[in-house]
């Protein structure tokens, strides 16, 4: 009781003690002035293009805080790299890009609100970004409602370009069915006929599992069993130790810290020696390699991007991309990681938008349909805009098909085993657009 009274008195003293003095007024005024001045500082694009040129407003939704913050910040590096490069080289149709970044805290409700803010308050012309599939799915209808093109940067959920496809949404990188088509023949013909799949037990893991079961069987192999492990499980040993029997290879479908956990614990249980060890490239993403150490040696994976300058990736444009990315990534992570597929796909997504906007003579939202038509079937050629390689955005479902890299880890580094051309990753479309 006494403490409570004291607290109340203290707070009353704090709030009621004073009148507005001249000194306080100057102090508050200075603070408000500094805040106002910081808002009036011209954006970088204004210095280059002058005040008269109206910029394209491009929104980007990224999870910069919360559970997916690390990936979101990496993804934003790719977007900003592309925007800076475009603005330095004269913009799009002579107009600069004003990038409006919105952090959705890795939460779908915040994502939905931020998407509305970008569309209604900021009045963006197009959107590029999106990281978490559930947020992409929650926001997708809004882009259709406001008739704004949504170029996805990272979201992998298969249904975004199949059962839940939208005329306004494009995915300029691969998805699980295409990866399974590309990887299954190698798995069956070069590693082993029979497989057991361990996967992260949630939507992405489950849909990827189904894609691999289908394609491994189609390639003449067999999947003898599957084991789902809840997302974020710190100790996977009880699940992994149940996996036994007569099969050739263990296939893992995990990402992020789950990728590190499964890599380490499968090794500790001797499974990576007993069986061929393969899986989704997200297990051995460059950002995971330090934590996996030598336990990931020999892992065979598939990924749309590997940060190496060898083979088909030993090109001047890829080197330029990597050099720029490494410098920028070091600013957010002092350990200086190599770029991963999130940097690559956001960088290329923004460049795909640029090409579509140039091709369609896009002026603003009123030209959204023209932009959609320009992007449908768009062929992107390997070069400074697309260092990963050629790609095509299929008209029927707005899904891109790209080359895939099969790699293994040798001496702690990526080694490309095979490059699967985009033509050999094709998977039939399963999308019916609603009438626009």
């Amino acid at each position, binding site marked *: 009781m006494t403490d409570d009274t004291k607290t109340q008195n203290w707070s009353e003293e704090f709030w009621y003690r004073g009148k507005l003095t001249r000194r306080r007024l100057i102090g508050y005024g200075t603070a408000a002035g500094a805040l106002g001045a910081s808002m009036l500082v011209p954006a970088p694009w204004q210095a280059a293009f002058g005040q008269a040129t109206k910029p394209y407003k491009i929104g980007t939704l990224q999870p910069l805080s919360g559970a997916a913050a690390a990936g979101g*910040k990496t993804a934003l590096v790719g977007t900003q790299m592309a925007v800076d490069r475009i603005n330095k080289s004269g913009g799009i149709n002579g107009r600069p890009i004003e990038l409006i970044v919105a952090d959705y805290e890795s939460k*779908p409700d915040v994502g939905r609100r931020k998407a509305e803010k970008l569309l209604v308050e900021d009045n963006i012309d197009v959107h590029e970004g999106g990281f978490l599939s559930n947020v992409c*799915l929650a926001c997708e209808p809004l882009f259709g409602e406001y008739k704004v093109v949504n170029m996805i940067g990272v979201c992998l959920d298969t249904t975004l370009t199949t059962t839940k496809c939208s005329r306004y949404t494009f995915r300029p990188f691969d998805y699980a069915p295409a990866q399974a088509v590309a990887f299954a023949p190698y798995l069956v013909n070069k590693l082993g006929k029979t497989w057991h799949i361990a996967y992260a037990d949630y939507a992405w893991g489950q849909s990827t599992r189904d894609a691999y079961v289908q394609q491994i069987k189609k390639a003449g192999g067999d999947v003898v069993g599957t084991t789902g492990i809840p997302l974020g499980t710190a100790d996977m040993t009880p699940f992994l130790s149940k996996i036994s029997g007569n099969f050739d290879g263990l296939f893992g479908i995990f990402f992020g810290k789950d990728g590190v956990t499964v890599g380490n614990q499968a090794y500790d249980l001797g499974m990576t020696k007993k069986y061929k060890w393969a899986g989704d490239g997200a297990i051995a993403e460059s950002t995971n390699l330090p934590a996996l150490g030598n336990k990931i040696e020999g892992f065979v994976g598939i990924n749309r991007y590997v940060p190496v300058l060898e083979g088909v990736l030993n090109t001047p444009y890829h080197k330029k991309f990597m050099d720029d990315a490494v410098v920028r990534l070091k600013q957010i992570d002092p350990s200086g990681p190599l770029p991963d597929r999130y940097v690559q796909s956001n960088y290329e997504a923004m460049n795909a938008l640029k090409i579509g906007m140039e091709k369609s003579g896009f002026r603003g939202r009123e030209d959204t349909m023209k932009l959609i038509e320009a992007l449908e079937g768009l062929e992107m050629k390997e070069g400074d805009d697309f260092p990963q390689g050629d790609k095509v955005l299929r008209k029927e479902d707005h899904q891109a098909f790209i080359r895939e890299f099969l790699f293994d880890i040798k001496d702690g580094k990526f080694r490309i085993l095979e490059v699967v051309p985009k033509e050999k990753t094709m998977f039939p479309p399963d999308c019916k657009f609603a009438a626009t």
Partner: protein
Amino acid sequence: MSKRSATVYWIGFSIILALLIVAPLVLTEFWRRFLTEILVWGLLAMSSDILIGYTGMVSFGHSAFFGLGMYGAAAALLMVRPPNLWLAILYGLVGSAGIALFVAYFSTRLRDIYFAITTLIFSQIFYVIIFTWTEVTGGENGLTFRRPALEIPGLFSVPFSSETLHWFVLAVVTASYLILRRITQSPFGMVLQSIRENEARTRAIGYAVERYKMTAVMLSGLFAGLAGVLYALQNRFAAPDFVYFLVSGETVIFNVMGGIGTLVGPIVRAGFFLLLREAFSRFFTEYYLIPVGVIFIAMVIFMPQGLLGFMRRWLNQ
């Protein structure tokens, strides 16, 4: 409440209600939707005030009631063609009430921190089920669906606009507030407050405390479920994140910082929190939670009775 203060109360209530009715006509599209969302979160916060503020039971299970209301509405909107508003509400309420009964049966036998932990565990159980049962719940991706029309069978049926949706949500939240206010002032509400003040003594004078606590949890869960239904109607998606315990945590914060045992306080706090978050996020992007956190700490120190408690004392100066 004296006659004079009752008059002041109802005049204040009418003015605020009138402002909320007029608001969508003057606000831009974004802020109109934002205000509607504040009302929805406010209803969720208000529902938990029945437990925290009036019964003295801190629940971390409100995310489960909110989420189940949302998924119940989603089930109706996906299964019934054409989607029907009243069925969505019915399914949502049945879903949340069923879960509330289940949770209440087991958790009300416990008190204080044990009750809080039990409700937390239940919400996490439902989260895991929803997260992994992809075939039914959509798993991590959740469910997306179409918004039903605003209709009264046989009379009219019109698609919701952002204005009509706001008024509909406002009507539901206002009705909920009045019902809850009446309940808290009824003999039943007095028994709940008696349990909060001294559970042993309440039991000693002959009240079946467990039954009252169960009813309070169910009542609270029902209104939390209603908030979930309204959220689903506004945003047209349901996601497992809403069942996660962090939503319950935010609800507790709304109560503690808005002023527990006031019903209106948690709504004010929900609005204040969402506005603060929105305003700071425009200047500090991913760092905006830092100033928001600092303000929270300052509020806990300087306004121990919550925002409404502080305002009340300030007005009484």
